[in-house]
């Protein structure tokens, strides 16, 4: 943990660019306000250097994929990362030779369905576990936590047999419902957020005569909004990028999702890297939109966090 605080950019000793501070404090060692201001400036520089390096490392692969998606078929293997001249050929191939729009629609419906159902199940459960735990709440928590350890691959064979018997292959219920096996994660994460909410606020509402469901809907949900934003982003993206289950549940191209759809570019008539990357960018765009819509909520929390 102490190593983490050292990495935190605002702590001066870790900083590589501590030169300016020395030049300021050197001539007038006794004047603390000046040295403090200098130290803060150095801290600011270190702060941005730290974050910029991190951003560069994280964003580089995405930028590379974006640039390459505009390259000509021959230029994909070029050392120059820039697409010169840029072309939309890859996008044309991706949208005309493959039903990318259909796949994206299917994926959107599936991901929204999985996220909504998981939240509908997890929020009341997290609320109950914190506010009025039943006597067996330890057992319930254990039952939920254990589901987090189960590798999804080990459930796939029975779930596949289940939806086959119900005739649910290539249907939305078959695609969505089995993915509820991941609901435990939402419950555990939300439980911690509910626990962090002051009991005084919820208790006061109850004393004012609000029923438990009213406390949940009118008091807890508004407080939890940033946490719900963060958790639903996680759930939506998990569902969106799910690969294994859609392969088995919806192999029909009209009902498939974008992730197995992307693999089509790899297997059919040799790898088509340009169209694959173009399709990937189209598959990524909706999540970026979702994230930017919801991330404003997450950032809002930083301005209105005077709750406790």
């Amino acid at each position, binding site marked *: 943990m102490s190593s*983490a*605080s050292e*990495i935190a*950019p*605002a*702590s001066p000793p870790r900083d590589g660019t501590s030169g300016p501070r020395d030049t300021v404090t050197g001539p007038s060692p006794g004047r603390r*306000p000046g040295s403090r201001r200098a130290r803060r400036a150095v*801290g600011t520089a270190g702060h941005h250097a730290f*974050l910029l390096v*991190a*951003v560069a490392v994280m964003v580089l*692969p*995405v930028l590379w*994929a974006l640039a390459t998606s505009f390259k000509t078929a021959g230029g994909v293997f070029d*050392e120059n990362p820039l697409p010169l001249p840029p072309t939309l050929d890859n996008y044309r191939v991706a949208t005309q030779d493959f039903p990318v729009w259909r796949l994206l629609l299917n994926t959107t419906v599936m991901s929204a369905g999985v996220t909504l159902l998981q939240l509908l*199940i997890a929020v*009341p*459960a997290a609320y109950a576990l914190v506010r*009025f735990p*039943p006597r067996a709440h330890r057992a319930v928590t254990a*039952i*939920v*936590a254990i589901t*987090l*350890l*189960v*590798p*999804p*691959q*080990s*459930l796939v*064979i*029975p*779930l596949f*047999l289940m939806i086959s018997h119900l005739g649910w292959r290539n249907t939305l219920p078959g695609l969505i419902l089995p993915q*509820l*096996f991941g*609901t435990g994660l939402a419950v555990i994460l939300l439980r*911690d*957020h509910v626990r962090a909410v002051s009991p005084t606020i919820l208790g006061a509402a109850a004393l004012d005569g609000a029923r*438990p469901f009213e406390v949940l809907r009118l008091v807890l949900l508004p407080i939890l909004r*940033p946490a719900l934003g*963060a958790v639903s*982003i996680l759930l939506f993206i998990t569902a969106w990028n*799910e690969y294994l289950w859609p392969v088995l549940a919806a192999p029909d191209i009209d009902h498939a999702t974008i*992730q197995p759809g*992307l693999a089509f570019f790899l297997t059919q008539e040799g790898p088509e*890297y340009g169209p*694959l990357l173009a399709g990937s960018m189209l598959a*990524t765009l909706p*999540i*970026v939109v979702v*994230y930017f819509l919801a*991330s404003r909520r*997450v*950032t809002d*929390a*930083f*301005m209105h*966090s005077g709750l406790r």
Partner: protein
Amino acid sequence: MEERGTRHAPPVGRARDRARPWLYLSPLLVALLVFVYGPLVFTGVLSFMSWNLTAPHPSWLGLANYQRLVEAPQFPHAARNTLLYAAGMLPFATVVPMALAIALWKRPGRTSAVYRALLFLPVVLAPVASAITWQFLLDPLSGLVNVVGSWFGFGPRNWLGDPSSALWSIVLITSLKVVALNVLLFGAALANLERGVIEAARLDGATEGEITRHLVLPHLRRTIVLLGLLSLVVVWPWIFANVAVLTQGGPDGSTDNVYYRLFTYAFTFFDAGTASAAAVVITAALAVVLGLGLLGARRTNGEPVPFTRRLVKVGAARRRQGKRSSVLG
């Protein structure tokens, strides 16, 4: 009004109070029973059977599937690799994203919002797409990583083709996604930390290092443990996609892991029995590790320390160092 009065009538109220939690919990319990515990039991039963998924009925086999797992060299080897993956991934699930999240949280505003949004990008890139991207970036001849390395005098390497570097290459590729996701989750945990107290400590002359150590880190202790343990579960689909696209477990089995093994048994060889036995072994091992981890976490984390007491700690630390508040002193 009348209705609210009846809530205090003891017999009715007590029965309702006792039933209420189950009303809120029942959808969850039903979902988990149908989609986790039922299939899990079924997998357990299958692990004693021989079934190629196309035959009409499985047939009883006893412990032969488990015996095959232990005696063939692949599975124990894959298990060792899995431990290496987990150990390599741990700092990227805890310390690195926490440092980034704290840095973002320390200076709220538009710049941090932009940083935060950009840091999340690796998660949104489709798994197949990011794997393909890295195949190009790590290319032994024209890959950008080797090009940049040559500027600093490093010779070209076949990162994914060399058994000594393939696993760690997969770890580093996948770590971007883990860092990105956990920056978001650490950020959500920090959203519950009251900013006013930090401002007060700052006005009082506490350095950023002291604020981090005594106010921010104690708040995150639970989150660190939780996300560290969760990473043992959530990283595998990402690692799986990278292994499946880039190395298929090779070279020389150096990137193989138990999850990829399980997949190979089930969907390459259609051997439901051996795959189920592998699933049982993986689940049991994870259960032991995470169970011990969560127990340990509960022991070290009681009630969160109240802010006032943490503030006193900051003051005490400053007094020990013989500093005086530059604002008040």
